[in-house]
């Protein structure tokens, strides 16, 4: 038993308050008549909204409700009534002209009685019946009866209309957009499910409520503008400027309602998510652009038409245009070949720049756009150009250079060999003279003959040497053709820590015939492999674990390896590359331009450079090997000294002539270097060379023995003679002033003298040691003095 039934028990015979809701004025009149005739209080209203208004203050016992109402769905109104606390026990009679067709589940809604609208006479009876005995009538209806259907039948047309109406409602109710119907004065008549949830109010609290009042005060004027009928179609609340309600954001538009009642349909869309997304996007775009504004690369945002939408300050500077002209001008669709593409940029002032462009496709304000970053590579291009020019020049001049070097070597060698020939020739000529003078003395003659023969042999040896030089040492290089051929087998060592990069290197290098590739993943491995496999060329990624390119180049230098080295750099590392080249690398390749052609050209160049370097080095070594003179002092070098000492000693023993040797050392020479620098030290040594030259006799052999040590071989001179001569030298040195830019330098010399002990088969070293001992004593006893070896014996 429901609450309504309980209430009915007590209301049967009393005067009841009754409300009639029906749009038909005839029906209303008729109903008012019967009801008041039956002694009850009655009110009638023509539509749902009026009903809701009346129900605010009028609480009926019975309601007669036509569910087909002009302004709102009767079923909905029904639910609202039932939801009202003060009406939950009201006795509701639903009456309608379409009850048969609709076969409503009105009982489920909680209607007490269903009454079909039929002929007035029939209705009169039924209504009186209800008023007399509502309880029993309700019981009949609960059992499934519809009152007043005795003389009416379902109409097909109405059934179909109702079915399409249901279909329409179903769609309306399930729309994600909120649909509301408003009265001309802006009160809510209808809201679909979505609208109800947007508005966050129950139907009861919403129906008849002014739509504007739902919103916060600050938004009401906007909403009221929206629902002013003359604004419909021309005014809306757009997606990008929505109105907040219940913590969500809504865009709204109105549809003009064409019915004569002037109702308005409002469509609400929840754009909260969209707004959040678009705001997040906007703020991330703004953030991105803030960063971009600090880029040193020029950045241009070109829209889908290729027109510049935004530029950063670096782009303004790079293109030499003002921002206002720039934005809106046509940049074009970027077309890249690979990762990047180079552009010539002519600024307004007419300066030419080279830019390197890379692009990213992005979405900008909902459209596809292109972000082009352009880096000023003018300086790098210039550098590359310079490098290429230099390379070409090297290639051009290479053969000429090698020829010049060869000639130089030849000349220097011939100078050296002429010098070599000088001595045996003078021995030869001298002995011929001696032989002539002593032609009566057969013993002396034989001795001379012996000397002549030896000198002749030495001359012949030297000439053979010269011939060897011509034939083998400086044979002409690759006459005419290319000097280095990349097609010959080239063993490349790639020092590369990144697997990815190495795979690129391998795939490109493998496409070049004749390249054998070995990989080292660390610097240690690299150095080890350099020793183990002796590669022809090293390809070095300048950043890798265990050190960087600089360390590696230094380590190679320490190892004295002279292998062509190509640096592999990332984009924009040209400065590093150029520093590495200064350190000793031969060339560089950027990872972005790692293609067959660049590699072949680069490898060919560095191999040629390397060869040229090697040739020159070999030539220099030969020169120094052939040389007999010390470059700095102009005296004989140590190698020549040793040879000469051996020769002279043999000669002195053969001829029973004395031979003296003195070894001398500058005093406190280190101080000169330390205080005045090596330049001054060198000048002192050179000056000493001049003093010694000046002092020595024609037959003496003055040499630079070590750093600041000198040695003089004094043929046919005994110890005393040598000591006196050395004393004279000591004095000359002490009085000499070496001219230097900071002022004259004074220096002294200590000298140790010894004489070869004839007949004693001392080694050469013993002889030198004795002179060294004497020198040591001279130093010990205060420097700037001459000491003679005590054990020297003059043999007659």
């Amino acid at each position: 038993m429901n609450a309504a039934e309980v209430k009915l028990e007590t209301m049967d015979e009393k005067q009841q308050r009754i409300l009639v809701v029906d749009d038909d004025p005839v029906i209303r009149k008729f109903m008012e008549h019967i009801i008041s005739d039956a002694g009850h209080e009655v009110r009638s209203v023509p539509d749902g909204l009026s009903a809701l208004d009346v129900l605010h203050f009028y609480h009926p016992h019975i309601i007669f409700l036509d569910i087909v109402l002009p302004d709102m769905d009767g079923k909905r109104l029904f639910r609202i009534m039932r939801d009202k606390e003060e009406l939950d026990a009201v006795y509701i009679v639903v009456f309608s002209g379409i009850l048969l067709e609709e076969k409503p589940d009105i009982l489920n809604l909680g209607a007490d009685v269903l009454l079909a609208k039929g002929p007035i006479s029939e209705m009169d009876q039924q209504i009186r019946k209800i008023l007399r005995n509502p309880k029993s009538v309700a019981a009949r209806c609960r059992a499934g009866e519809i009152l007043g259907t005795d003389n009416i039948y379902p109409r097909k047309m109405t059934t179909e209309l109702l079915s399409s109406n249901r279909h329409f409602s179903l769609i309306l109710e399930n729309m994600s957009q909120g649909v509301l119907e408003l009265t001309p004065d802006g009160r809510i008549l209808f809201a679909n499910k979505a609208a109800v949830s947007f508005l966050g109010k129950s139907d009861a609290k919403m129906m008849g409520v002014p739509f504007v009042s739902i919103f916060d005060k600050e938004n009401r004027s906007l909403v009221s503008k929206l629902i002013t009928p003359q604004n419909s179609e021309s005014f809306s609340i757009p997606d990008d400027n929505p109105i907040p309600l219940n913590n969500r954001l809504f865009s709204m538009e109105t549809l003009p309602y064409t019915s004569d009642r002037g109702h308005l349909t409002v469509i609400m869309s929840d754009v909260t998510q969209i707004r959040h997304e678009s705001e997040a996007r906007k703020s991330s775009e703004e953030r991105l652009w803030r960063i971009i504004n600090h880029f040193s690369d020029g950045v241009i945002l070109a829209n889908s038409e290729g027109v510049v939408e935004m530029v950063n300050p670096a782009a303004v500077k790079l293109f030499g245009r003002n921002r206002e002209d720039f934005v809106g001008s046509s940049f074009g669709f970027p077309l890249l070949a690979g990762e990047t593409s180079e552009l010539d940029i002519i600024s307004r002032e007419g300066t030419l720049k080279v830019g390197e462009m890379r692009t990213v496709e992005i979405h900008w304000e909902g459209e596809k756009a292109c972000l082009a970053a352009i880096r000023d590579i003018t300086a790098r291009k210039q550098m590359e150009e310079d490098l290429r020019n230099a390379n070409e020049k090297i290639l051009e001049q290479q053969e000429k250079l090698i020829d010049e070097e060869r000639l130089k070597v030849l000349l220097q060698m011939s100078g050296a060999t002429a010098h070599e020939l000088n001595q045996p020739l003078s021995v030869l000529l001298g002995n011929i003279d001696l032989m002539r003078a002593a032609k009566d003395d057969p013993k002396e003659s034989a001795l001379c003959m012996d000397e002549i023969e030896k000198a002749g042999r030495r001359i012949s040896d030297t000439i053979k040497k010269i011939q060897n030089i011509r034939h083998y040492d400086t044979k002409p290089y690759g006459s005419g053709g290319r000097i280095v051929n990349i097609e010959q087998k080239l063993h490349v060592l790639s020092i590369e820590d990144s697997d990815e990069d190495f795979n690129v290197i391998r795939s490109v290098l493998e496409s070049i015939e004749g390249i054998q590739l070995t990989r080292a993943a660390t610097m240690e491995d690299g150095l080890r492999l350099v020793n183990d496999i002796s590669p022809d060329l090293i390809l070095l990624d300048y950043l890798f674990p265990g050190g960087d390119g600089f360390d590696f180049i230094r380590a190679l230098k320490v190892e004295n390896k002279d292998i062509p080295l190509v640096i592999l750099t990332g984009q924009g590392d040209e400065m590093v590359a150029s520093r590495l080249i200064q350190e000793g690398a031969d060339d560089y390749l950027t990872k972005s331009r790692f293609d067959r052609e660049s590699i072949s050209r680069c490898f060919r160049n560095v191999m040629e450079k390397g060869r040229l370097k090697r040739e020159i080095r070999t030539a220099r070594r030969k020169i120094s090997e052939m040389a007999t003179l010390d470059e700095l002092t102009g005296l004989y070098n140590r190698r020549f000294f040793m040879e000469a000492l051996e020769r002279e000693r043999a000669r002195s023993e053969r001829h029973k002539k004395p031979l003296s040797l003195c070894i001398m050392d500058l005093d406190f020479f280190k101080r000169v270097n330390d205080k005045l620098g090596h330049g001054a030290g060198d000048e002192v040594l050179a000056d000493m060379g001049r003093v010694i030259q000046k002092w020595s006799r024609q037959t003496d052999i003055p040499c630079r023995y070590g750093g600041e040590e000198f040695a003089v071989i004094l043929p046919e001179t005994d110890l005393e003679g040598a000591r006196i001569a050395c004393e004279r030298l000591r004095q000359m040195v002490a009085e000499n002033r070496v001219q230097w830019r900071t002022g004259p330098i004074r220096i002294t010399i200590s000298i140790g003298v010894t004489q070869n002990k004839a007949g004693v088969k001392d080694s050469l070293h013993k002889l030198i040691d004795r002179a060294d001992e004497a020198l040591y004593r001279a130093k010990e006893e205060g420097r700037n003095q001459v000491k003679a070896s005590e054990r020297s014996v003059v043999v007659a």
Partner: protein
Amino acid sequence: MGKEVVLKLFVAGKTTRSIRAIEGVTLAFDECLKEMGTLEIIDLLEQPQLADEAQVLATPTLIRLSPTPVRRVIGDFSDGKKALDLLELKG
């Protein structure tokens, strides 16, 4: 056949970029479009006043003046066909 094709290629001097672009675009044009229109090559170092006129920001730039709407591409045209594709021109 559609409207006549009018193309202008802007370069600056005899840089490698210019040479590549001229070669690439001329080759593709001769191959596909020669009968259908004209290709003009403009060196902005020789005719700098044309840069402003045509609003060329950087070179190489290839402009399709006809058929309208005017469209342009900028960048590396060593593959001239790609440039023509971007301009929606096909032989």
